[in-house]
């Protein structure tokens, strides 16, 4: 039968038993599909509805049209939270990707014990957005934390990095940059894809290390850079855990680490204003959507697909 089926498909006819295969396929997909509809699409539709209502979590939602959205225009804390989030995204993502690329290039040159280094550098990515690391961060950058003890050895007077509004956001940027491992591993895989003959040809023509990097590595790596850039920007916009734990849930000191997501949480669960919080969630979705679309549009001018 199987030989017959193969023959059939070779001739472009519907093979026997394809229906069965389809069913099996959907069955295998079922857990994911269920999750998508129950945990993702369902709540999304609900939150879209709630964004047009006044909903305090306990009583039934009341339809108020666009009021939640117009309120955002005059909400100064929301504007501040946008400033904080944009600063975080546009400082930490480029830094993170630059470090990831640099280390990937170095590791790709065949360092001894490369597997070890790769694992070590990747580790923070696995832990980076966890609560445990955020708590650790609070200790490291606290008034009596590790950083200040190290600075003390060099005679530099430390400070409460996390409790000073001018440096608190910086500690979160450092935390995000520190999780450069996952883009680094993707860069490493990308570097492996670049044919060595290009480098050989370039060397024969007398191109130096920098020239080879900027003329071969970078252009051929642009699809990977693009991939990492898009993902990391989205990821950074959605950051929540780090700021929540490091600031003890307050977004403080003085709202200096009040990410958009954190303010959303504060409105929804602190102030029982779930309608407004839902509207904010959709606003964030639009922001991320716009940035991603812009990224894809711009990619036409700098991303090079080699095929």
């Amino acid at each position: 039968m199987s030989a017959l089926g193969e023959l059939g498909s070779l001739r472009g006819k519907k093979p026997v038993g394809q229906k069965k295969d389809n069913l099996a396929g959907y069955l295998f997909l079922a857990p994911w599909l269920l999750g998508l509809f129950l945990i993702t699409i369902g709540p999304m539709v609900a939150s879209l509805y709630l964004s047009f209502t006044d909903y305090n979590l306990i009583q039934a939602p009341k339809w108020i049209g666009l009021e939640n959205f117009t309120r955002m225009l005059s909400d100064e804390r929301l504007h501040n939270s946008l400033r904080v989030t944009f600063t975080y995204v546009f400082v930490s993502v480029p830094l993170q990707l630059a470090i990831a690329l640099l280390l990937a290039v170095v590791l790709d040159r065949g360092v001894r014990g490369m597997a070890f280094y790769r694992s070590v550098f990747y580790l923070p990515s696995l832990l980076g957005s966890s609560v445990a690391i955020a708590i650790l961060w609070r200790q490291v950058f606290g008034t009596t934390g590790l950083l200040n003890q190290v600075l003390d050895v060099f005679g530099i007077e430390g400070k409460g990095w996390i409790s000073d509004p001018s440096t608190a956001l910086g500690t979160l940027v450092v935390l995000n940059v520190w999780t450069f491992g996952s883009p680094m591993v993707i860069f490493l895989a990308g570097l492996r894809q670049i044919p060595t003959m290009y480098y050989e040809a370039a060397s024969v023509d007398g191109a130096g290390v920098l020239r080879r990097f900027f003329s071969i590595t970078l252009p051929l790596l642009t699809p990977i850079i693009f991939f990492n850039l898009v993902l990391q920007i989205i990821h950074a916009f959605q950051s929540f855990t780090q700021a929540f734990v490091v600031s003890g849930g307050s977004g403080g000191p003085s709202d200096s680490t009040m990410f958009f997501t954190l303010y959303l949480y504060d409105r929804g669960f602190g102030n029982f204003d779930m309608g407004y919080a839902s509207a904010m969630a959709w606003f964030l979705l639009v922001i991320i959507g716009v940035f991603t679309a812009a990224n894809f549009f711009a990619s036409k001018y700098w991303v090079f697909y080699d095929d």
Partner: protein
Amino acid sequence: MRHIPRGLRALTAAAVTVTLLAASACGGDSGGASSSSDGGKVTLRFTWWGSDTRTKLTQQVIDAYQKDHPNVTIKGEFGEWSGYWDKLATTVAANDAPDIIQMDEKYLREYADRGALLDLKKADGLDTGKFEPDTLGAGEFDGGLYGLNAGINSFAVVVNPAAFKTAGVPIPDDKTWTWDDFAKTAAEITTKTGGKVTGTGALGTNEAGLNLWARQNGESLWTKDGKVGVSPEKTTDFFKYILKLRDAKAIPSAEAISQDMNASLDQSAFATGKLAMSFIWSNQLVAFSKATGQQLKLLRIPSPDGQAAKNGSYYKGSMFWSISARSKHQKEATEFVNYLANNPAAGGVLLAERGVPPNTEVRAEVTPKLKPEDAATAKFIQDIKQDLGDPSPAPPVGGGQVEKIIQRYTTEVLFGRQAPEAAAKAFLDEVNGELK
């Protein structure tokens, strides 16, 4: 040829879609089993905030109750104050509220006005006959009783006598001290210990200090009809006084204070011996005594002209017992609350850790058994009775946010990012904006 495939672009797009979908639907988890019963067996969920001390004492009471009521199992859920309210809001929203809730004045109306709490007047089996008059009032509104007073406390200055001794500074007379005396004493301690111990914790890390400040000046944080009752001028004075403390080095650095705002009681600056004085609620003396291992002392809040009777103090319901309106076992939950409030055996364990018992019989029963720190709390409450001002109106719906808001503006002022006048105005605007 090993080329980078065009398919990568599709992969990028797919990855984007998935992450975007996750963006607007974060947190769909509503975990946690709700109360259940089978064959006459009832499981109640009981939630409270507080220190280790409180958790141990409360668990003892639960164990004793379960021994007498073999059909009832009580599951304690406890945490620190700062995370408690987020968690409670989440469970209430998920229709998964605990049966018995330790409630604070700040959030009582927030929950009760929205029908989340049971009217205890209509609940079967709760006896409030032995309660001291006036102690029920704070949990009562719109003709119902939504929170049962779990203990009486008062805002106070806590003193670590050991720190005063190290500094060689005498503990001042709290019946006559003024805010100037307070600042001077605190600054002196910082100076004389060479900064090892700082004079006092800051005012303005919660709203109670501002309320007393307002009351001393003929105003109050909230009015009886649920509005903001403190003027921009008095709030400005309040922030100016905090700056005065800062400039005299009477309080720790701005960074240390902002860090302390999120610290748990056991890890706070006063509990770890870095401060000689601090502002606390009188019932917290028990937990702070345990944490510091010292014999601590409570002093009255200073006043503008050295008259203790004019320092604006009042008896506050330190916390309340509430029952979820959606509890499936309201009868059993009410019986347990009745046990917490009226049973001398329960009182004998809990003592004054949640404040002085409002049930006069329990109080009489318990007083001789009090440990030194509980006795000190009870005595303080007794001593200030003659100097009390009017009761302080409960915060209106939306007023629960005021603690976070004043913390933020105190930080702004301490770091010099906002002048007292600007901070006072912005603070009041924001509090007004939160009221519903």
